[in-house]
């Protein structure tokens, strides 16, 4: 007997949710941060969606948010021309990094010592968090606003996507471009999977997978609607995508077959990410909510509880998932 997906809705934001990120798995579970146009990014328990706290301080829409692996630090990028670093345990603001324009993207290195920022001033910046007064290292080259900047290849290189329809790979030390990808349209999102060096890029209705080191194309998949964000499962068997038609799509990564699609959001889906254990994925929408979706519908996990009549044991059973 197949079960129907019951998404868990996390309310609290009052404007569109534009970005979200998970931490790694910590002794206290894993965590989720959401960036919202209401200027108040929130921290939630990753497996339940329970609200933990709101980072207060930004004076404009927050466009990007990230957590370090241990979920001890958070960073946010906002329309108030600042990027902020926060203590993710106490909620206190630790650093404000002034920029010359809207900041769109923030990313920590693995050891949380450096923060990468990118935004509308077309410049990538690297800040040493332990020496915030020092001038950041700057990387220029993009001719339009930067949407996303991510560390890759063990923090020795940087991947950036901008409205100039390019994705560029930079060397951190020389700040020179190593490789560049050009598209016919703006890239809507980018996700980097260190384990396996996979880069997930979305543009138009396409979800594309690249080798993050060589920028060689692995495969592309086309969706029924314009896609804003996609995420690859840690085991690389599925990927999920969401966009303009308000739906979440789940695909088989090997066969490219569309497995399921879910309605639920009341607005376009702006961001979607798998949890670090792959058991669920979270989506953020124009409707101001975050929704958590089970990867394996029917499994007992987090707040989802498999309830079957009599004494049938449903743990570990695979349910037939039909479109």
């Amino acid at each position, binding site marked *: *007997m*197949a*079960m*129907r*997906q*019951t998404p*868990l*809705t*996390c*309310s*609290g934001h009052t404007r569109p949710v534009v970005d979200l990120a998970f931490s790694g798995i910590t002794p*206290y579970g894993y965590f989720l941060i959401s960036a919202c146009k209401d200027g108040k990014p*929130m*921290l*939630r328990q990753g497996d*339940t*969606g*329970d*609200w*933990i*706290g*709101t*980072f*207060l*301080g930004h004076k404009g829409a927050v466009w990007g948010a990230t957590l370090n692996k241990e979920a*001890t630090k958070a960073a946010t990028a906002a329309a108030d021309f600042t990027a902020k670093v926060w*203590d993710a*345990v*106490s*909620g206190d603001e630790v650093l404000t990094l002034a920029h010359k324009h809207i900041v769109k993207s923030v990313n920590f290195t693995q050891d949380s010592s450096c923060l990468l920022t990118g935004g509308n001033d077309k410049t990538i910046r690297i800040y040493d968090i332990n020496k915030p007064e020092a001038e950041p290292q700057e990387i220029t080259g993009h001719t339009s606003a930067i949407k996303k900047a991510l560390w890759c290849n063990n923090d020795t290189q940087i991947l950036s996507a901008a409205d100039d329809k390019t994705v560029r790979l930079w060397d951190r030390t020389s700040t020179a471009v190593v490789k560049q990808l050009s598209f016919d349209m703006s890239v809507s999102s980018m996700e980097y999977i260190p384990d396996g060096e996979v880069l997930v890029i979305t543009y138009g209705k396409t979800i594309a997978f690249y080798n993050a080191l060589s920028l060689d194309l692995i495969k592309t998949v086309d969706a029924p609607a314009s896609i804003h964000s996609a995420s690859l499962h840690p085991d690389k068997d599925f990927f999920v995508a969401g966009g303009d038609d308000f739906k979440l799509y789940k695909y088989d990564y090997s066969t490219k077959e569309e497995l399921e699609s879910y309605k639920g959001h009341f607005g376009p889906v702006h961001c979607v990410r798998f949890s670090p254990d792959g058991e669920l994925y979270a989506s953020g929408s124009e409707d101001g909510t975050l929704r*958590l979706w*089970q990867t394996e*519908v*029917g499994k007992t996990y987090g*707040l*989802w*509880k*498999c*309830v079957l009549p009599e004494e049938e044991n449903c743990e570990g059973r695979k349910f037939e998932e039909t479109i």
Partner: protein
Amino acid sequence: MRTPMSVLRLPRGPDPNSRGFDPDSPRFIALCSTTISSSTDTETDSVQIGEEQCARSMLRESFLRTLIAMTNKQVQFYMYERVKVNAVFVASDIDVLNFQVSDLQTPIGVQKEALLRCQDVILYSFDL
């Protein structure tokens, strides 16, 4: 006809009265470095903790009393960008994030009722 997956409860939403980050949560207690160390320390530490707590309580109480004393009085607020404004203080919210003021005198006119963002205030002064 598929049965919808059961849920134990819905995710907890934000507390309208606070910014969260519960200091009683195990994660906070374990990871937040504060000047107050754990209760399993030596007696001297317990004495220090006690003294520190006394000082904290005193300061907190004084602060709250200044808020009471300020009510309905003219207060001068010195803020960022060399902003200096006068207003009648009415109230503060519980996290001291916003001050409610009346007759806020600004360079472009008097605002009958206004909220001042506390993080924008550097210092404020009033006559007792």
